């Protein structure tokens, strides 16, 4: 590399004086418009930092003359969505839950909203997939077995007031006695065998006969003579294949000896009616939901079905049935 500048004969341009293996570098001038573009972008950069949040300060950054913020933008977007969904929201709060699924849009809206509500509030106990936790007695919401009823209306009531809590006077309530306090171990073991027999599980028939008598005297008032349970008081059906706390001898022994006392907080005040109904619609649609029995001409001339629908503008029309582009937001 030599540092000898000279004028290149072919082009008449000065060289930079640098050369590599005989290849010399021309000092070709940059176009002037490039320079002006550079100045223009610089000026634009300065203006931009004045208009928008930019300069870091000790706490935070300059706010920018336009007052723009990404938070504000999100808030405005949420507000826009809320506004566009206002009548759906209102219909959801007022609709008779027995006919919710007759308005497809409204039902879809409720289910989608409920998905978010569930993920944020319910999944901690019932699991993200709503399969519950048997060891802790959190019911599986996917199956067709319901302690307190499986219509949207029933589920909404459960969500609104909760179960066996002191906070809501309307909470669903019942309590099983702890039979360990007045039964002997043998009596408990015999009842376990009878309950297993009721559920169609392998059992000791001799003991079960003894247990059956105990069952009629002590348990049938709630669980029914056949052990089919009673939804009015949340007494589980003992004849089906689903065991809230487990159907093995150890779990049944614990249940009878110490009783169980599953608690669910009331959500009505915390979530508001719309979200309560939304989450009920969501849970109802997980595979086990029950239809409300309609009587006589109620089927025809049932309660009013609101005609709220998704906003029709192109941006907001869900092209994918079942998936609105913007899920309603929990507040």
């Amino acid at each position, binding site marked *: 590399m030599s540092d000898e500048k000279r004028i290149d004969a072919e082009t008449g341009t000065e060289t930079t004086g640098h050369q590599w293996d005989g290849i010399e570098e021309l000092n070709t001038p940059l176009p002037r*418009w490039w320079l002006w573009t550079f100045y223009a972008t610089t000026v634009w950069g300065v203006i931009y930092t004045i208009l928008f949040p930019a300069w870091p300060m000790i706490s935070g950054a300059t706010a920018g003359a336009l007052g723009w913020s990404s938070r504000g933008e999100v808030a405005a977007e949420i507000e826009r969505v809320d506004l566009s969904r206002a009548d759906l929201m209102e219909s959801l709060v007022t609709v008779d839950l027995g006919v919710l699924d007759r308005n497809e849009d409204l039902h879809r809206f409720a289910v989608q909203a409920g998905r978010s509500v569930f993920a944020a509030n319910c999944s901690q106990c019932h699991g993200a997939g709503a*399969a519950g936790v048997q060891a802790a007695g959190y019911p*599986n919401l*996917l199956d067709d077995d319901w302690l307190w009823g499986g219509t949207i209306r029933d589920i909404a009531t459960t969500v609104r007031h909760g179960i066996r809590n002191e906070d809501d006077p309307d909470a669903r309530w019942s309590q099983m006695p702890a039979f360990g306090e007045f039964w002997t171990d043998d009596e408990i073991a015999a009842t376990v065998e009878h309950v297993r027999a009721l559920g169609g599980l392998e059992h000791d028939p001799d003991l079960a006969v003894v247990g059956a008598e105990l069952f009629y005297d002590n348990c049938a008032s709630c669980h029914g003579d056949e052990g089919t349970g009673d939804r009015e008081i949340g007494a589980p059906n003992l004849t089906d*294949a689903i065991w809230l706390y487990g159907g093995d001898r150890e779990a049944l022994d614990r249940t009878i000896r110490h009783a169980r006392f599953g608690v669910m907080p009331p959500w009505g005040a915390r979530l508001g009616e719309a979200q309560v109904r939304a989450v009920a619609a969501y849970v109802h*649609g997980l595979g086990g939901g029950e239809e409300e029995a309609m009587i006589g001409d109620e089927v025809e001339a049932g309660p009013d079905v609101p005609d709220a629908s998704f906003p029709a503008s192109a*941006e907001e029309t869900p092209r994918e049935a079942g998936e609105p582009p913007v899920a309603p937001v929990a507040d």
Partner: protein
Amino acid sequence: MTDAPQLFAAREPIFPRRVSGTFRRLKWAILWITLGIYYVTPWVRWDRGPNLPDQAVLVDLANRRFYFFWIEIWPHEFYFVAGLLIMAGLGLFLFTSALGRVWCGYSCPQTVWTDLFLWVERRFEGDRNARIRLQKAPWSVRKARLRLTKWGAWLLIALATGGAWVFYFADAPNLLRELATGTAPPVAYVTMAVLTATTFTLGGFLREQVCIYMCPWPRIQGAMMDPGTLTVGYRDWRGEPRGKGGVKRQRAAAHAVGGGEARARYGAAASKDVAAPRTSRDGEVLGDCIDCMACVAVCPMGIDIREGQQMECITCALCIDACDEVMARIGRPRGLIDYLALDDHPPTLPGEHAAVRPMGTAAAGAPVETIPVDGAPAPAPNAAPRPAVTVPELRDWTPKPLWKHVLRPRTLVYTTLWALIGIGLLVALFVRPEIDMTVAPVRNPTFVTLSDGSVRNAYDVRLRNKHGEERPFLFSLAAPGALSIALEGEEGLAAPVPADSTRLQRVYVTAAPGDPAALGGRTPVRLWVEDALSGERAHGDTVFNGRGELR
């Protein structure tokens, strides 16, 4: 510091002269065709039925659909667009390796719009000399009027350019109405404003600066050319030494020498009656270039092609037209400037640019004088004299025919690849189903035990209906054992999918209590859907998870 190098240079304005000829006509044709396609396409209507847009070519960004006549592309079929892009890339490789920068010279929007703007410029301000005069003249009412009308016309074209663009993204007649009444979405106005501004400045003022400084393509293309590639070039061996000759003397020489020397100069391709070489006043032998600068005057890039291949040259071929005109006038064969390849050069020895046999020297094999072709000043007197070299017989040299440049292994490979991808895309286009499904098993939890002891699995099935009307999709199940199927939220096994939409449907498959599938591990199952109207079927394979009690 007076001789300090200039760091920045102002643009030298270029005033390309009007020219006519084969390539100019070809370029006009391409210009009107491409511009025509660009402006007219969004207005072409295409009936797709009541629920779908009736615009032949439409990019529907909001709904993520691309319509092209009878073809409709969904986002999951983006591979079509990828395939087309690959084909476009290969097509450019092909054309560049065969014909150099033809893309630049004929069809690049920058070239096309600059050409159009130049045409407007000539309409208002006259041809090259008039425009140079106008540029030099001080500002006057006339100059201001000419400039303003020219800019006005440019602005209208620019506006139409930006305007046409937005019509590709929305229903054109509707959008035009909205634009006219000021109710169009802001993004339409912004897009139009940006495109109008860029068209106006790039086509009107920056022109060749775009090609030289902004566009990466010249560099890429330069790397893709090889010595066999056809490109616009100057036959230095024929044109040099350039100079204005004495016409009379030349005629006389032609009589004296006849076709023999012409053969020496043009090679075997020369016809008999081509005139003999020209001579200068001092009797020096001259090449065909009369140094009229016509090729420079017409060049939109402002370069002199006689200096050899240059990065600036967009191979617009206008200099060929200009030079052919001159050659016709002086009675020489056309093609002093022409499409040629570097390996087309007549045989010379290494290290020599060109060698021309001076008139009257001895037959082949004799030493000849060499002439540098780059137009640089003659070598300084103290420079070492160039060695005399021997030129093989030019008389017997014929340039390679054009087709040999175009059909080479390299171009054939590109063509084959290009065609294969094209065929692949076409086949994919015709076999792709109008209905489609994908199955995703729900894994949280993998199965649910129901109260009667049966075991249920859930699947999220995405159904696609590309028809322009709602279609009922009938579900069925192909699986061993007593498995049954049900749909969430639907009474039977039919799920209606709205026109041109997808639908997410949860599907339940249940194994009866005690069924091997209920107790076992994983059982393969296949879900079928059938379009109840057309009978088209699609399926998705998945597994059924049992309780895992059997091993």
